[in-house]
């Protein structure tokens, strides 16, 4: 053993290995065990302790949790080179069925997603939204029925995950490189979702909101024509959500965006078309406005200075009045038709002698309609 050529390589390797493990332990968070315990394990079990630490205990460095920059002021993405706007729907399913035992799953879903615009997919938990998106993305096979698509489809999961040791730029470049050329560039995609400042940071340290933005950047950069976004705003703060909705609306001008969400106000804000799933069945599909018109009763808010009680008693007796509710500053009146509200109601107010300050139609909201649809179906 006196010959250094014998022992020097072993000692040097062991020392270098232990030193490397300790440097890594100091620089990074530890997984499974606290750092002091790993420090003891590395030293007590050379080299097995260090090998265990490197494989199992070495965490990804956390970046400072800076708030992500807002998406760029003009969220309109760079135009993607595309052929002429196809007249066919971007995605169409026929009698799509996927059952997971019993009645759970999808039942004969005939989905038709227009070639441009935002399609909002809504439904209660367990309605089959994620299953439907998975089948559209090719991640699940239907039991029966067919899926037809004229365009390239990309899915962004609700909680996207990435290789934590890649930077944001590398992540977007990776997925962009896997798809056909012609998508929004890597830098541009990161700009659009407000991650320009974090482009060189490893994504292992990203917050959930930043990860969600990165998921959208990945989908943008791939050049897909149909973007399937599963709950894309679920992890964002109110400002981030608003920015993201603007971006989704802008994307709808160039792409076909299918957007599932529990937040119906978001869907109402950006979607042109809506599909309502309940118990795996598509119970409505069509323009949002048409849904609101068809399933909401005309309603009017009357702001009165006086005479509210008298007017309420008078309206209660009329057959074209569905309901009258008292409010702090007047009444809310549901009528059988828009015509009745616009023509007969003003005449009754005048005849009752009530002092009218304001007379406004109550805007229908998707949440009310959705609840009505789901409840009526049950």
């Amino acid at each position: 053993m006196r010959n250094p050529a014998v022992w020097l390589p072993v000692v040097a390797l062991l020392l270098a290995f232990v030193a490397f493990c300790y440097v890594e332990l100091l620089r990074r968070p530890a997984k499974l065990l606290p750092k002091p315990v790993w420090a003891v394990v590395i030293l007590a079990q050379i080299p097995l302790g260090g090998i265990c630490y490197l494989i199992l205990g070495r965490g990804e460095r956390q970046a400072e949790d800076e708030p992500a920059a807002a998406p760029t002021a003009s969220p309109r993405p760079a135009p993607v080179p595309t052929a002429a706007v196809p007249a066919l729907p971007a995605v169409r399913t026929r009698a799509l069925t996927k059952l997971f035992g019993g009645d759970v799953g999808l039942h004969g879903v005939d989905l038709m997603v227009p070639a441009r615009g935002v399609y909002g997919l809504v439904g209660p938990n367990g309605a089959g939204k994620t299953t439907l998106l998975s089948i559209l993305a090719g991640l699940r096979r239907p039991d029966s029925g067919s899926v037809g698509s004229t365009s390239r489809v990309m899915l962004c999961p609700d909680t996207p995950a990435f290789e934590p040791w890649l930077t944001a730029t590398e992540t977007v470049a990776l997925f962009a490189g896997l798809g056909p050329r012609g998508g929004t560039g890597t830098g541009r995609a990161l700009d659009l979702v407000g991650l320009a400042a974090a482009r060189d940071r490893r994504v292992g340290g990203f917050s959930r909101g930043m990860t969600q933005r990165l998921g959208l950047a990945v989908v943008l950069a791939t050049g897909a024509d149909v973007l399937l976004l599963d709950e894309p705003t679920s992890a964002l703060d109110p400002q981030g959500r608003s920015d993201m909705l603007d971006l989704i609306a802008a994307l709808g001008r160039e792409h076909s965006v299918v957007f599932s969400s529990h937040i119906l106000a978001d869907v109402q804000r950006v979607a042109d078309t809506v599909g309502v799933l309940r118990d795996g069945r598509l119970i409505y599909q069509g323009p949002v406005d048409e849904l609101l018109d068809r399933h909401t009763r005309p309603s009017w808010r009357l702001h009165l200075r006086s005479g509210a009680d008298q007017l309420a008693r008078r309206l209660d007796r009329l057959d074209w009045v569905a309901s009258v509710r008292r409010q702090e500053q007047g009444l809310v009146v549901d009528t059988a038709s828009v015509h009745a509200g616009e023509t007969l109601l003003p005449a009754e107010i005048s005849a009752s002698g009530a002092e009218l300050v304001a007379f406004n139609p109550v805007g229908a909201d998707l949440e009310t309609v959705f609840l009505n649809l789901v409840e009526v179906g049950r």
Partner: protein
Amino acid sequence: MSLWRVERLRLLRTGRWIALAAVFLLLGLGEPIATRYLGELLRGATGSGYIHITVTRPQPSDGMAAYFDNITTLGTLVTVVIAGLAFALRANPPLAALYLTHVPNRVALLLPRLLTVAVAAAAASALGGVAAAYETTLLLGAPPAGATVAGVLVSSLGTVFVVAVTFLVATLLRGQVATIAVALGAVFVAVPFANLVPGVRDVGPDAFTALPQRLQLSPWTGDDTWSTVVVLGLIAACVAAGLYRSSRWEL
């Protein structure tokens, strides 16, 4: 950024390459030393009492055989863990969804993972073999060159076999822990138990695993050729079955 580069970065940035190289290098450098000084170590352990241990003078072939013996356990264990972590793609469904919707086919996604891990494991095994030959030459004398080269190549192919088995298991199961546990069971339990099948003992993967040690003492035989062919066939079968299975994946 290609998938090949991502797989290289997976090894480099996660530090897994260091774990892989460290195991094989330390075994390669340490086993000949342990073999050379085994007598002194035992005498030191027994003290000057009534027990007298006589250890025969170690030969160069003993240094290499000790290395080949130890990498079949510790080296295999680390290789399975590193391969299992890389191959258990579906353990992280959101990430798997992104990959699977972006790649043209699943072979394009899995082949870089498989080959990168296989090449890294084989290279680490060969590196350890070179280190073992270096230390053996210094301490015990030069080992037989032909048997050493053949042993290093066979042991490297053995690590590729372990990687292929882990790949197949990963395509059948979802979780990382389950993949690693079942792959270890397959390598450490199923492979030796296959010897119970008549005719497998001399030409099966277990015989192939012991081949590098045996080559230090006896020449290459016809059965060795057959066991190599069998292992090559099993590697091809595991990869083909794994790729087929991955084409049926659902998330």
